């Protein structure tokens, strides 16, 4: 039980009904665990249980709950399907506004869009969309994620992005409960014209509150959006093959999936430009070989045994270090044949080849890209680190991005085979986006069970941000929260403008996310320009690691 006074619990009950408010330990503690790790530490819980969980069933109830929070100056944070630590409240004792009762889903096939609420999952949306020859974008969190949350609040990228873009760009009109509890409809829905566009009248207001990264719950609650859907030439229901947990999707009629391979990234990049400009490949993504291995195996033990005995299939080893998984999609046999011919011609001109893969492997790769079903499996290796560069810029940067992640950032401590991870290539997840640019995330795994791993991870993440600051290779996406003040100055001070937005729309600082800018810059950010020169100098790093070891050691139960 929390220390929340009874009259405040009553105030919440008056808005949502007594069955939809709880401060029971088992409820609030469940909201302290968010699957994808906690803050950098050896803890598995965030250590920030909310004081109560409140479950509104409508936008008006959300607004009512936020107003109660404002009345009693309680911090709050929206929660939809809850994939990672960013879903939890930012501060112990906040109110978790769990949106699980709001699961509306309406498809408008003629306008290629849907209208959804926060608890509609991507799995539900794509299943309905397929019935209308449409599909939705599914982010890396997989079919369980909330497309509304990813569109309004957090990143929104996924491996199918070449065909289905990014959810922040897929969002159309939106409904927002401000941090002070006002209901605002942005774009066409604000004029009762429907949910088909997010801009206007006049300026695109949503650009103030969404951004590239998203406010991650730091700017109120989003309750309903229009979302764009994409063409789907496949069947109304996906066919599945293989026993659980090796479930795969045989490529539907007029689809084909291949694992393509080159000797070097220069050739692969040339081929990538050709594939992009030909539009013959709908889905093009690269899972690092170790991640492919985790998709193909059911358990860590199975992966470990196969890896140690050298029995992993080629696509899960260094043999597949330079390559793409591609899936073509066609509406007619003639288009399918052209896709095949184009792919073969590109491979012939760029010294590329199709790897031999089994039907099971093919089906799992297909499921991975069409549904993001398997992306989360790479977390089985551990979690913690994740950086990005090369974000949404020229495909021609790919070789340099891979080189940077492979050589420049890694040192003895953090490179593949070092203290942080034991795999044989860098861990770049890459995919094309909108047939224009590419995205990459270097996500080296690390167990969080040991302080030395956490330290190596933090070192790695900050080193990569600093490296990208010196010579940018696209945006370093995972700069957010308090790090905005560390790395913002080199980006033209977006942190300054974000802070104006935060303080304008959330004057009481109640919308509680540690993944968005804070009302005031942390003291450490002032010292950062000097500190980074000291701590990331070769002789300063051991000192930095010692400080981190001491800091994270506080959480270590061992």
């Amino acid at each position, binding site marked *: 039980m929390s220390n929340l006074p009874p009259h405040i619990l009553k105030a919440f009950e008056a808005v949502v009904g007594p069955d939809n408010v709880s401060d029971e330990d088992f409820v609030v503690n469940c909201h302290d665990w968010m699957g994808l790790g906690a803050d950098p530490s050896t803890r598995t819980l965030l250590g920030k249980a909310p004081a109560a969980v409140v479950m509104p069933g409508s936008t008006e109830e959300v607004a009512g709950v936020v107003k109660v929070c404002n009345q009693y100056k309680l911090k709050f944070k929206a929660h939809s399907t809850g994939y990672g630590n960013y879903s939890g409240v930012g501060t112990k004792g906040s109110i978790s506004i769990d949106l699980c009762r709001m699961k509306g889903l309406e498809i408008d096939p003629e306008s290629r869009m849907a209208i959804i609420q926060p608890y509609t999952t991507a799995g539900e949306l794509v299943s309905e969309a397929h019935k209308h020859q449409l599909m939705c974008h599914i982010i890396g969190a997989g079919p369980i994620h909330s497309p509304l949350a990813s569109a309004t609040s957090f990143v929104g990228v996924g491996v199918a992005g070449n065909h289905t873009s990014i959810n922040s760009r897929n969002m159309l009109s939106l409904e927002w409960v401000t941090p002070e509890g006002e209901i*605002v409809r942005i774009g066409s829905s604000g004029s009762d014209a429907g949910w088909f566009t997010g801009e206007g009248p006049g300026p695109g207001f949503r650009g103030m509150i969404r951004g590239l990264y998203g406010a991650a719950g730091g700017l109120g609650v989003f309750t309903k959006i229009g979302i764009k859907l994409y063409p789907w030439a496949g069947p109304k229901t996906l066919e599945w093959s293989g026993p659980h947990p090796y479930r795969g999707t045989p490529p539907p009629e007029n689809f084909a999936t291949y694992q393509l391979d080159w000797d070097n990234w220069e050739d692969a990049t040339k081929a990538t430009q050709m594939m992009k400009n030909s539009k013959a490949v709908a889905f093009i993504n690269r899972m690092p070989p170790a991640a492919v291995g985790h998709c193909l195996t059911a358990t860590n033990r199975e992966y470990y045994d196969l890896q140690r005995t050298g029995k992993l299939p080629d696509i899960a080893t260094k043999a597949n270090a330079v390559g793409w998984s591609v899936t073509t999609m066609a509406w007619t046999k003639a288009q399918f044949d052209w896709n095949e011919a184009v792919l073969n011609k590109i491979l012939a001109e760029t010294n590329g080849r199709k790897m031999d893969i089994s039907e099971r492997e093919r089906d799992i790769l297909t499921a991975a890209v069409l549904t993001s079903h398997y992306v989360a499996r790479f977390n089985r290796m551990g979690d913690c680190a994740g950086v990005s560069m090369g974000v949404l810029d*020229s495909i021609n*940067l790919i070789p340099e991005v891979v080189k940077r992640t492979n050589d420049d950032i890694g040192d003895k401590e953090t490179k593949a085979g070092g203290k942080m991870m034991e795999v044989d290539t860098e861990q770049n997840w890459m995919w094309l986006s909108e047939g224009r640019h590419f995205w990459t995330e270097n996500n080296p795994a690390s167990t969080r069970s040991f302080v030395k791993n956490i330290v190596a991870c933090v070192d790695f993440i900050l080193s990569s941000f600093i490296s990208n600051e010196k010579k940018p290779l696209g945006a370093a996406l995972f700069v957010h929260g308090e790090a905005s003040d560390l790395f*913002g100055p080199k980006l033209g001070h977006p942190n300054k403008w974000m802070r104006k937005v935060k303080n304008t729309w959330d004057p009481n600082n109640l919308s509680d996310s540690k993944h968005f800018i804070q009302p005031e810059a942390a003291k450490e950010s002032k010292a950062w320009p000097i500190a980074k020169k000291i701590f990331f100098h070769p002789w300063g790093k051991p000192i930095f690691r010692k400080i981190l070891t001491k800091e994270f050691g506080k959480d270590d139960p061992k």
Partner: protein
Amino acid sequence: MINDAFPLPKFVTFENATIAKEFLGVSTENSLKVQGIARPEDEQQVQQLVQWANEHEVTLVPLSSPSGNRRHGLAGLKDAPFVVLDMSKMSRVIHADGEDAIAIIEPGVTFPEFDAQLQKHNLRSIKPFLPRASKSVLACYLEREPTTLPNEHWDSTDPLASLSLTMGSGESFRTGGAALYEDLDEALKNGARQMMASGPIGTDYTRVMLGSQGTLGVTSWASIYCQRIPSIEQGFLYGAEDVTTLISIVRHLALHQLGAQYFMLSRVQLAAALAKDSTHFAELHQLFGKDAMPAWYLYVNIASRDVLPEESMQWQLADLSSLVDTLPVTTISQQYPSYLAELEARLSTPSKEFYKDVPCGTHTEVFCITQMSKVANLVNLAQNLLADLSDVQVGFYLQPMIQGTNCHLDISLFHTDEQTTQLADIEMQLVKVLADNGGFFSRPYGKWSEDAFARNETIVPHLRRVKDIFDPAGILSPGKLCY
């Protein structure tokens, strides 16, 4: 206000009100309270000028097109003194990359100038429907004017990506990928192409600036997506009596991702698009009636893909035919190939005069966006409302947007100067009818904005906060929107 109490800026070319009026295309007797015209030549001068305007409380109205009829640039301005910020002297195409199909340009670049530079990189600009030759490319995109390539229109920010801005406060800011480097030359040398609109971090101010009608910031350069020139392309002009027949083809084009350019026109709008002058318009109008030409037209341009282009044309044409052959559609491009040829010539080479002013000397227009499923009904409602208008020709242009998710509905009343006043009421009646039935005025100019903001009063205080953040002294184009 400009007066003798402070000196005019010396860091920028500054000219008097007479020259400013000439630039605006109004007579010297016009009561417009324009005080002068400032002509910056680089970003630093823009920033200095905005800071100067803040210091001396001078209102600036940024305009980018070097000449021509300013349809929206002055609409809705407060009746107060202002200085024109003429951005047309900044007219460099800074960079173009054929492989990534992206370029960086300044505000004064026009479509013909842009295309001339892009051609060297096997690129061409993504155009709105028949812009005048002197139209600023950047201004078109900043206004969210729809382009004729809906399948390349992923999001409402397209084809714009990053912007280099001077906010109304005088502070500089770069959006998206442009924020990564301070030095643009260094960025380009290192392979960065400023391809991202959103960001950095928690900002997406490209999106905010679009549609702001110059009230929040001034853009000095921007990265812009372009179209790779296909090795083979073939245009078609289909005609039908019922617009819904053509809408069903448009849905197919969007779903199967066929075609590069496509849009729909009514018979009058097609005549306006093809007309060389008012006499020619009258002739075409008469001829179309005599030949019993269909009421509605769909232009589609099928473009080859980069690899195996001939083969790519074959399957695309077969796919298109599989639907068109089943519908009550006339292939006008077969019957009257000259109409297709003339339309394509107009599409690729902008004319000096804006096409809507050719038929009768001037025009009144109303446009909104809606959904493909609602647009036929809006057309009907507009036709009913305008049925009794005499001596005015009414044309319709329907532009699918955002890969078929939206549709721009553009209604033009072609008329003489003398008729302008008497059509003011019908213009606002049309705005109301459209807005009452699912038309959304995302780009509300002049009088339309009152209706648009009355329909969403809750957004108004939030937009005013945006204005306070970016332009706290309110020096940029006051009165144009709800602030």
